[in-house]
């Protein structure tokens, strides 16, 4: 062993004898992390969360979560003398009279947007690579929970400044709660402490926003990371990578340096946005009064899909046993959220049920190699995307000169058609990419060398694919199909006799059938791999 300086050796021995971190560190510092850019997407959310905690703490020093009425007398002239809530006045104070307050407020808000955007792209990566499969289903569920909580955290957060725009969001929240059958009214009075808007909702949202949800988020994020650490990260298929190993760089020093650099990148990008791009200019919105509403009132982007579903929904209302059921509010609030979140949470288990696959998976699927899953994912993106887009239909109408009603009518059809189209298109693209892969393996890649054969024909010389590319392609895993066929006696197995069983068998066959099996070895046609192309006789394999 090389000699350790005495000062360090003394302290570390002291710590080692009492807490014993040496052993722990020895084991964990060499933890291997696989390298792929998409594996860093979740870290965008993680580092944004750290920024949110830091900037949020700063903001609490000046923010007053009170709906008590004050007359503004700060330095923003066009609002001087206007009556407003203390919350709004203190948010103005942070923006105009606290040193660095506006910058921190803007960084906080941009970090919130990137926190959720980061979670979304991270979740899509996990979904499309099948990284949620056994043994990682629980971590996937934690992730879905994190996303749901983040949406709530965002909703409570942008309501806090009590400006006119956030008030519109608050009013919709109230409307949705009122729309819940039977208990809606009670729930609303419980949250608002009386008739809307009351005097309590800001302070209650404050506690929820700065204590309750961040606490749960922190706990769940820790659990998310610990589980990831214990279960190890999935890796892309490639040379030397199996279900039993992880190929990559050790945590210390390589991964730590990269993660550290990426932290700084995230801080940098968010600080850039906070400096150069104005976000949530509450002074322009004015204080909230329930009587006022502005054109172009939109929620932050992550709530946009709910806004869109509300705007698309026809004004349906039924009367059931003398109770009004406002379907026009209930359906857009609950159905898309239910489809997206419940669908995400259940997907790993539905897939397991369909494929009957109970194996552990540590190698990621390439999205093309599970075309039905990828198509379902794109269908979901399209569903979400149409709603999201239509949440801004008034801005689209005003800026692109399209009639407002036409956007609504378009959306009512698109919400059903576009996901279906996306499914088919994504599926075909996957099959096409698989064909390309199969071709690369069986025929090699174009070498750029054109040869003329003795009888005058020209051929392009193909060379075998490079080892790493070939191994990457060969990583395609078979999707299991449950036993469904009739047995020797012509009797289907027990599970497949019910209607559900037959459906499962059908789905399993569709889901697992490999339409483009990879063919190894030499090709069958003119463009077969013919070595490095330096044989002067133009010798061709396969002929």
């Amino acid at each position, binding site marked *: 062993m090389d000699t350790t300086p005495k000062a360090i050796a003394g302290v570390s021995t002291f710590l080692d004898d009492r807490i014993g971190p040496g052993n722990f560190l020895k084991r964990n510092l060499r933890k291997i992390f696989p390298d792929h*850019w998409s594996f860093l997407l979740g870290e965008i959310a993680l580092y944004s969360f750290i920024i949110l905690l830091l900037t949020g703490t700063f903001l609490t020093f000046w923010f007053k979560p009170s709906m008590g009425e004050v007359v503004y007398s700060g330095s923003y002239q066009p609002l001087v003398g206007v009556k407003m809530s203390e919350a709004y006045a203190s948010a103005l104070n942070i923006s105009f009279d606290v040193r660095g307050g506006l910058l921190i407020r803007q960084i906080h808000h941009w970090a919130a947007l990137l926190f959720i955007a980061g979670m979304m792209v991270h979740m899509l990566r996990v979904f499309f690579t099948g990284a949620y499969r056994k043994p990682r289903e629980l971590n996937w569920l934690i992730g879905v929970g994190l996303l749901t909580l983040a949406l709530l955290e965002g909703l409570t957060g942008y309501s806090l400044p009590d400006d*006119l725009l956030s008030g519109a969001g608050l009013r919709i929240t109230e409307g949705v709660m009122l729309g819940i059958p039977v208990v809606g009214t009670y729930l609303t009075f419980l949250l608002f402490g009386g008739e809307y808007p009351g005097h309590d909702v800001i302070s209650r949202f404050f506690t929820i926003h700065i204590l309750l949800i961040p606490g749960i988020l922190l706990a769940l994020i820790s659990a998310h990371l610990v589980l990831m650490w214990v279960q190890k990260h999935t890796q892309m298929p490639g040379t030397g990578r199996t279900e039993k190993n992880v190929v990559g760089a050790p945590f210390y020093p390589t991964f730590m340096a990269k993660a550290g650099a990426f932290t700084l990148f995230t801080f940098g990008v968010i600080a850039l946005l906070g400096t*150069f791009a104005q976000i949530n*200019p509450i002074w322009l919105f004015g204080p909230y009064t329930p009587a*006022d509403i502005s*054109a172009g009132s939109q929620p932050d982007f992550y709530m946009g899909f709910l806004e869109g579903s509300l705007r698309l929904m026809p004004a349906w209302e039924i009367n059931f046993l003398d109770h009004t059921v406002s379907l026009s509010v209930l359906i857009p609030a609950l159905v898309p959220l239910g489809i997206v979140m419940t669908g995400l949470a259940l997907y790993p288990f539905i897939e397991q049920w369909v494929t009957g696959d109970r194996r552990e998976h540590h190698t990621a699927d390439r999205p093309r190699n599970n075309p039905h899953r990828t198509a379902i994912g794109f269908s979901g993106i399209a569903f979400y995307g149409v709603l999201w887009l239509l949440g801004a239909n*008034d801005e689209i109408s005003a800026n692109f000169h399209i009639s407002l009603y036409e956007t609504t009518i378009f959306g009512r059809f698109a919400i059903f058609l576009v996901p279906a189209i996306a499914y088919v298109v994504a599926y075909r693209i996957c099959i096409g990419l698989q064909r390309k892969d199969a071709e690369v393996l069986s025929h090699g890649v174009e070498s750029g060398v054109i040869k003329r054969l003795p009888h005058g024909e020209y051929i392009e010389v193909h060379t075998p694919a490079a080892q790493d590319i070939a191994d990457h392609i060969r990583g395609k895993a078979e999707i299991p199909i449950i036993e469904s066929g009739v047995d020797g006696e012509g009797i289907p197995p027990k599970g497949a006799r019910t209607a559900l069983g037959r459906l499962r068998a059908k789905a399993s066959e569709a889901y697992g059938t490999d339409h483009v099996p990879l063919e190894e070895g030499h090709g069958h046609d003119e463009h077969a791999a013919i070595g490095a192309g330096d044989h002067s006789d133009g010798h061709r394999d396969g002929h």
Partner: protein
Amino acid sequence: MIGTGNSVNSITARRRHPLARYAVVALALGLLGGGYAVAAPGGGSADAAIASGKADDVAQGKSLFVAHCASCHGLNAEGSAKAPTLVGVGAAAVDFQVSTGRMPAADAGPQAPRKPLGEWATPQAISDLAAYVQSLGGGPTRPAAEQVDPAKGDPAKGGELFRANCIQCHNFVGAGGALTYGKYAPPLNPATPTQIYEAMATGPQAMPVFNDSTITPDQKRDMIAYITHVRSQVDPGGSGLGRIGPVTEGLVAWIVGLSLLILASIWITAKKRRTHA
């Protein structure tokens, strides 16, 4: 040319220069356009004489009306199937519509857009036209300069009125917004204080009328003070992103923020130490 092989070559070379075809097209277009400008009927001179203020305002206004408005609004402003009567709309309505270029309307869309003024529409001509229409049946008159002076208004009071009455269509900073059936609330940024006042007093197109009993002239001046103050204000937080709220913010978060971070993640993972394999 024969015998001077050099120059032929250089002419040919120039003719075949890649930019030559653009030069030819530009020249042809220039000749065509210039020729048209010279040959086109010069309609400006008669109007200019009328607009020079020699004759009585109303009489000149009438001849301007006949020239520019009567084809739709009728020779005596009595209206037609295409356009309403202008009797009683007042000078304020004429001044607003013509000084913003909305009238004469270009085509029959759901709403006449603001557009550059015709050459004839000098302030004097608009004033004459307004005087003529005012003479037909009264109506709201144009505000005095002092009535629309933002410096004399109270922007804070105006802001409250603005939020209560205007922003549901025009957006919280007057950036404009969508209405139904292809109509829209236009952005308020290009409007002069006088035009804002006249719009409130006359209710052009889809806009309701805010007459003096709904919003007093002093309150109108307060609102003008707020609108002009906010639109001239430098955004303290950086680029205002069109001041339309979270839609553009979300676009920037994804297109700028997330793209930069994904590029960074690709760059970081692409940096690999050569392993001694």
